[in-house]
Structures are given as structure tokens and as C-alpha cells.
């Protein structure tokens, strides 16, 4: 039986951590994720958790401490944002290549500069090739639910990879919203215990974790790591199914909102998806066949399932028997890739669609940088533009444009 409550995204993540009661948390404060270790230290002081809470002098040390802890065979977690995550980049790769299923609560915030504390996905996008599983949340509910699923995904023997659960800084991390939470006992039963096959403190076997990799072996290890990421796809779906069976809330690689007969759609991640859904409802009320796809799993990237869903072919994560009605799609990035032709989500979604969705016209939209607000009306204008794109040759449609940026 779920409990009806209200809390901020940071409180929801902290609640999940209390219920999971990890063995080790090592963290350094940075806005807007600071509250998470603050709550955890209160839980610790109040005797609500058995976690060893390690206060460190930097995020690089936080992740290094998590690596040491997890390598010794226990659960380690941390939380960070923005420049804090950037300071972790070096060791994020170490955690992933050492196959340590650490869980990181990321509260997305712009990277400097200019210095800014608000929502942007540039921090976790900078870690997109680090080998971490990345799952994005629309609201406090999803941040909570994704945290409860994180260990099951990362610790699965077919996966053994670290997991980053992302939510938008301030927009959800500091907003009080309604939420359904679960009792401690069923959460603990769902999350289960961590029993790694190998770890440093196991007296029966001796293992080396993180030694120098000589050329005859590194390629094979990297291939194994990439294969683990591919295996994570099935595990993410299986864990989501079990989560739905246990707690009643349904998740997949992505959510399709009113996509059944949609002709125009936007695809995006995070909190703006909720605002987009309000726009879709308004447009549907006016007879416009609008739809929305909210990507939840960015790593591993669900290329097949997305291509199948967007082209109307049945596929895992997509729905069977749809007609392929989609005519134009806006792929929205809350980060600037500085590639000169858009953001990372735009590039990857288009790569996934190449050769599999003939005739679907696409545009990449950069939005929300530095916390710039995106309104329902912005989405409505975007759908009008998607309609207008029908009258254009694909080669005349710009690769990318920005939304909500002041002109002049």
C-alpha cells in the first residue's frame, strides 16, 4: 500500500537512500544536490540508518571513496551536481571500468560559465561516455522510483555497472509535489541485498581491482564493459516489470504520451516533459495530433526501441500495431553540445532513426540553458513549427535552433 505524501525531489531521493540504507555514502556538498547528504547526515545522527557517512574534501575524493568501498564488497552511494560531477569525471570512468555498481543521485545543474546554479543537463551529458547507466526523472515521484530500481539494475550479474539517477536542479529538486512513497519493508525486500561475486575483502578468493591494463587485455575488457551496457537493456525492463508488479507504477526506456496516432511529437528528458504534456493536451483539444516521448534511459541508449516507436513499427518499449503516423519530430536538448549542429540527444536520436524512419522530418531544439524557463506556450509554438516543417524539404530544415532565447 503506497503512502500519499508531498516532498521535494531531494527529499524523495533522501527517503529512498534511508530506505535502502547503503553501507557507505561519501559526498561533498554542491547546490542543488547539497540537501541530499544533509538529509542523510540527519538520518545518521537520528540513528535511522547504519550507513558509514564519509565527509570528503572534494567530489573526486567522494567518488574515489565510493570506489574503494564498493570494491570491498558493499553498497556505496553519492550525490552531486554540475562542477562537482565535472570534478568526478576522471573517477567515474574508473568506477565503470572496475565494474562497481555504485549509485549516484545526480541533480542536474549547468556547468560554469558563467557560473549558474540552475537546471541544465550539461553536467551528466559530460559523463555520457563514462560507462555509467543514466536514468532521467520527470518529477520527485520518478526520482524516488528510479532510485529504488537503481541497485537492482546496476548490481545484476549481467550488468555490474554504476548507475546515475538524474533529476532537474531546483525545478524538481527544490519543488514540493505530491508523491506516493512505499513502506520501508517492501522497499528493502524489493532492493534486496548486495552479494558480489568477487570483492577485495573476500578471504576465499584474491582479486585485483583497478590494476594497470596491458594492451593485450584492455580491448577485451572494454568490449566486456560495452556488452554489459547492452545487457543492461533487458535488466532495466525486467526490473521495471517487477517494480510495477510490486508497487504499481510502470516504467520503460521511454514514456509515450498520446503517441498512438500522433503526427507531431517532441522528444525530451526530465521535468519539461510534464509541461510538454500539458501542451499536448491543449493541442489535442484543438484537434492537433500532438504527442510526446519522454526518454528515461539515456544510457544504455534504447536505439532500436526508439526507432521502432517513432517509425510506428512495433518494438520493445513501443506499442504494437501503430500506423507510423508521425510526420515530424523535435528532439530537445537541455545542453549545448558545441558541435556546431546541436546537442547530444539530437545527434543520437537522429543516428538511431537513420535508415529506419524514412520521411520523418526532425529538428533539434536547444532549450532551458541556465535554468531558462520553458512554458506551455513555448511547446505550443514548437508544434506549430513541426506542422510547418511538413511543407519544407528535409534539406531546408535547420539541424538545430534554440527555444526561449532572447533575440538581439
Amino acid at each position, binding site marked *: 500500500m503506497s503512502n500519499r505524501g*508531498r516532498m521535494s525531489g531531494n527529499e524523495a531521493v533522501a527517503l529512498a537512500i534511508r530506505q535502502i540504507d547503503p553501507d557507505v555514502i561519501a559526498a561533498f556538498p554542491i547546490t542543488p544536490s547539497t540537501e541530499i547528504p544533509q538529509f542523510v547526515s540527519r538520518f545518521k545522527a537520528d540513528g535511522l540508518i547504519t550507513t558509514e557517512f564519509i565527509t570528503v574534501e572534494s567530489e573526486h575524493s567522494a567518488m574515489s571513496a565510493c570506489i574503494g568501498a564498493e570494491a570491498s564488497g558493499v553498497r556505496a552511494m553519492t550525490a552531486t551536481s554540475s562542477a562537482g560531477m565535472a570534478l568526478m569525471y576522471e573517477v567515474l570512468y574508473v568506477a565503470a571500468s572496475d565494474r562497481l555498481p555504485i549509485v549516484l543521485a545526480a541533480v542536474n545543474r549547468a556547468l560554469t560559465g558563467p557560473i549558474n546554479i540552475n537546471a541544465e543537463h550539461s553536467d551528466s551529458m559530460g559523463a555520457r561516455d563514462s560507462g555509467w547507466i543514466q536514468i532521467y526523472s520527470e*518529477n520527485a515521484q520518478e526520482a524516488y522510483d528510479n532510485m529504488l530500481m537503481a541497485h537492482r539494475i546496476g548490481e545484476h550479474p549481467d550488468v555490474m555497472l554504476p548507475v546515475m539517477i538524474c533529476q532537474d536542479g*531546483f*525545478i524538481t529538486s*527544490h519543488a*514540493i*509535489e505530491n508523491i506516493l512513497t512505499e513502506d520501508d519493508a517492501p522497499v528493502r525486500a524489493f532492493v534486496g541485498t548486495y552479494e558480489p561475486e568477487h570483492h577485495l575483502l573476500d578471504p576465499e578468493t584474491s582479486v585485483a581491482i583497478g590494476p594497470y591494463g596491458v594492451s593485450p587485455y584492455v580491448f577485451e575488457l572494454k568490449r566486456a564493459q560495452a556488452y554489459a551496457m547492452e545487457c543492461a537493456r533487458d535488466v532495466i525492463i525486467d526490473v521495471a516489470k517487477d517494480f510495477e508488479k510490486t508497487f504499481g507504477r510502470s516504467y520503460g526506456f521511454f514514456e509515450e504520451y498520446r503517441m498512438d496516432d500522433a503526427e507531431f511529437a517532441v522528444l525530451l528528458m526530465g521535468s519539461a516533459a510534464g*509541461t510538454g504534456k500539458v501542451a499536448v493536451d491543449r493541442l489535442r483539444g484543438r484537434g492537433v495530433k500532438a504527442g510526446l516521448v519522454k526518454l528515461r534511459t539515456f544510457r544504455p541508449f534504447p536505439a532500436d526501441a526508439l526507432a521502432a516507436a517513432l517509425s510506428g513499427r512495433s518494438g520493445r518499449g513501443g506499442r504494437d500495431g501503430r500506423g507510423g503516423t508521425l510526420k515530424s519530430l523535435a528532439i530537445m536538448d537541455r545542453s549545448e553540445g558545441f558541435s556546431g549542429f546541436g546537442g547530444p540527444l539530437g545527434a543520437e536520436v537522429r543516428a538511431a532513426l537513420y535508415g529506419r524512419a524514412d520521411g520523418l522530418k526532425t529538428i533539434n531544439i536547444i532549450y532551458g540553458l541556465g535554468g531558462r524557463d520553458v512554458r506551455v506556450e513555448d511547446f505550443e509554438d514548437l508544434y506549430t513549427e513541426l506542422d510547418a516543417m511538413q511543407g519544407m524539404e528535409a534539406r531546408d530544415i535547420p539541424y538545430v535552433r534554440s527555444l526561449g532565447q532572447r533575440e538581439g
Partner: protein
Amino acid sequence: MIEIRWHGRGGQGAKTAALLLADAAFAAGLYVQGFPEYGPERMGAPITAYNRLDDTAIRIHSNIYEPDIVVVVDETLIGAVDVTAGLKPGGSLVVNTGRPAEEVRAKFAGTDGVGADVSIYAVDAADISIRNLGRNLPNTPLLSVVARLTGVIGEAQFIGVMQEAYEEKFANKREVIAGNMTALKEAWNGAVLVSGDDTSGQGEEE
């Protein structure tokens, strides 16, 4: 859906008031949002906080541009910040001020969007706060005024929810709870309607 926009300065508690209003409306069975918009984090800088209250789930995650209620926590913001921007026709404007009704009316006379159909309420939240708390923390009295105007919660339930919220918030500072509670009770009926109709939803069918 009721949308509320709070204008204050850093340190005056506009964000806290918005979060507590969300608590109160939640207790009354509603779906709620309460969130701040941060600029530079410093005492005295203008800040904005927001509430959405609805009887169905709230999915929108943008700021509020067409509020039903605007709360001016610090009257020195009038003129410096466009506090009434987008205020809905028939909406309400709550101003923390010790000025007489005539002066408050005059302050907004001719302001875009503040027509005769906008109800303006004046409450001397600073005075209520100083008398009850010994400090100028205007957010507590204003919270009470706004909670009443929303019409989503009755006085008894509101006072009960706030008592609980303060017990938790001030668990290590219990001496301030009583003052906050008397400030809330005094402010519930403490606003003066200086222009327009009484928009308080109390006693009406929603």
C-alpha cells in the same frame, strides 16, 4: 487550478511561506506545488516563489505567468519588480503594508492589469509579526491571509496543520512556535479589502 506568485526579498521567507501553503493545501486533500525561483543568493535580492493547487495531478513544471493571486511580501519591490505582471482578471493582490487603504489603492492606480475587477488586500504583516514574534518575519501572517483567500482550507484545519508543521520545523527552537501561531490566528481575518470584491473562497462551494 489556483496559481499563486510570491514576491519578496531573500531572507523574508517567501519560499518558506510557499512551501507551508503547499503543506496546508496538501492536508486539505489537494495536489500541490510549492517552489522557489532563485536569482543570486543573497539577503535582500528580489526572489519569487510559486504555488499551484489543484484537485487533479499537476504536471506543468514552469514558472507562473498568469497568477490568480499575487503576494507582495515587501512593498519596496513595487515599481522595482513588475509584481502584477499577468495577474488574472478578477484576481487578488495581497500587499504587506502599514499604509492606509487610499495610499495602497493609489500605488496601483493605472497599473496595467490591475483593473477594478482585481481585489486588493492590505495587511500589516510586519506589525503582526513584530507584536507576536518580536521580529519582522512577514511571511507567517501573509501565509494565513493567502491560505484564507485560496478557499481550499478552513481556519481550524489550517491552524492544525501549521501547528504540526511548526512543531517539526522548530523542534529545536520551540520558543518561537507560540508566537508564530498567534500571528497566524491574528492574520486569518487580518487583511483589509482596499479595492474590489471579497474573493475569499471561505464558505463557498468550490
